[in-house]
């Protein structure tokens, strides 16, 4: 078994930088846009399971093979994709062509990207995130500063964090409120 800290580090340095490329790959090869986040999550879970036994020597081909096999399995099981589509997947070619990582951003480019992500947030959400990340205020301090309830601040932060993380990893940076309905609330200690 691989130690959890090593596994986590491997995900941070080898796998997550390929997140945008993986998402593109899924999107290109799967018809239903609504399934993308679930498929990505399941692919990561498969990778996590194998990597916790032994770390693959090369992350990129391993990610590609896992993603490809998962899509083929899902397509067969769901019978929602035509046989031709599966054949396409099989003939996609060499692993290094299938998942093309984005160039690593410099610190300055990441800063600009984060700012662009902020600009895409609704104004209230943007302000709450700015107070957190720029001024370093806690949820309670933000709540006091703005005269708004802690729960509201927390919700805004959760939405803002998800949208910004999505944007930093190459997504559209849009807030997805639908999932909020099924949220699990975590008990807050005051």
């Amino acid at each position, binding site marked *: 078994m691989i130690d959890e*800290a090593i596994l*986590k580090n491997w*995900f*941070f340095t080898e796998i*997550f930088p390929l*997140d945008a490329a993986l998402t593109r790959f899924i999107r290109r090869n799967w018809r239903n846009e609504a399934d993308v*986040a*679930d498929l*990505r*999550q*399941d692919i*990561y*879970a498969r990778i*996590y399971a194998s990597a916790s036994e032994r770390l693959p020597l090369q992350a990129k081909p391993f990610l590609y093979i896992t993603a490809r096999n998962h899509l083929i399995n899902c397509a067969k099981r769901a019978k929602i994709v035509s046989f031709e589509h599966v054949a396409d997947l099989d003939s996609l070619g060499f692993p290094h062509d299938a998942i093309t990582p984005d160039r690593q951003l*410099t*610190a*300055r480019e*990441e*800063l*600009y*990207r*984060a*700012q662009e*992500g*902020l*600009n895409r947030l609704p104004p*209230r959400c*943007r*302000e709450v*995130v*700015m107070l957190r*990340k*720029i*001024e*370093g205020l*806690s*949820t*309670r301090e933000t709540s006091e500063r*703005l*005269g*708004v309830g802690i729960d509201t601040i*927390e919700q805004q*932060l*959760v939405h803002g*964090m*998800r949208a*910004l*993380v999505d944007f*930093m*990893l190459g997504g559209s940076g849009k807030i997805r409120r*639908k*999932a909020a309905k*099924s*949220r*699990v609330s*975590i*008990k*807050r*200690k*005051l």
Partner: protein
Amino acid sequence: MKSALSREHTAAAWLLRREEDGWSAGDGAQLEAWLDADPRNRIAFYRMQFGWQKVDRLAALREPGVPTRVHSSRRWWGRRGFGPGFAIAASLALGAIIVWQLGLLERHTYTTAVGARSEVPLADGTKIELNTDTRLRAEVNANSRTVWLENGEAYFDVAHDATRPFVVHGGTRDITVLGTKFSVRREGDRVEVVVVEGRVRVDDLSASPDRTMVITRGDIAVSQGVVLKVTHSEEHAVDELSWRRGMLTFNEMTLVDAAAEFNRYNHKQLVVVDPRAAGVHIGGSFDATNVEAFVRLLRQGFGLTVEEEGNVIRISR
């Protein structure tokens, strides 16, 4: 079945909660249970953490010279907004870019002998004060500032530069600076962090998933093995840093602990051989390298017996 998006939502809520001041061991256990419940939970949490760290770049906007591209949103809450730090002068933009490109690579090892202290400036303007018998390496480059504290104790007065995170590695603990003055002391796997100003994040890399704690002014965090303990006392924090003036300050400390402190600064070693003497409590400030004066106090003030032989001073009742 839970969808990836609702899992992501829960992961985000945990991550935010963990950054808050009131985070407790009980909260940690709850998070642990959630992470263990399903590998997809863990992955969602890690992925969120990975992305959120990238958003940390925004801290660069604390600097007045960094050009911001963010639209102001102050009117939406009907309050006054962010203060002068966010007012951007276009003329400063050029300066900021030049500073960025000056990130020269620099890596050095610094050491001090027993009883010595020294102050070293880093290329980014950070000042490090090394206490007795200390060894550390420091690297400053265009993207990051990193210090490895191999042994001993050091005080950091970190220059603001949020585009280059400042991280101190001390064994299995990582101390990430959120703009601040603080000290770190390392003896083997025991790591102590004292914060004088600002905030510091302590990551315990030995725990899985690693634990994080944000400590602020007046907090003293001590970690050893699996234990991470935080106490708050501004007075005590000041005492802990009296070495910067060459002094040791004891606040009702037992003689055994006080002797151990002196022994860090002197070749002449104090050994408490009598358990009845070991429990004597000592208070006050002492010159760290003047062990003779301390021994005189023990003999005259506390009536203890002192025998000196070579570099060893034995203390008994």
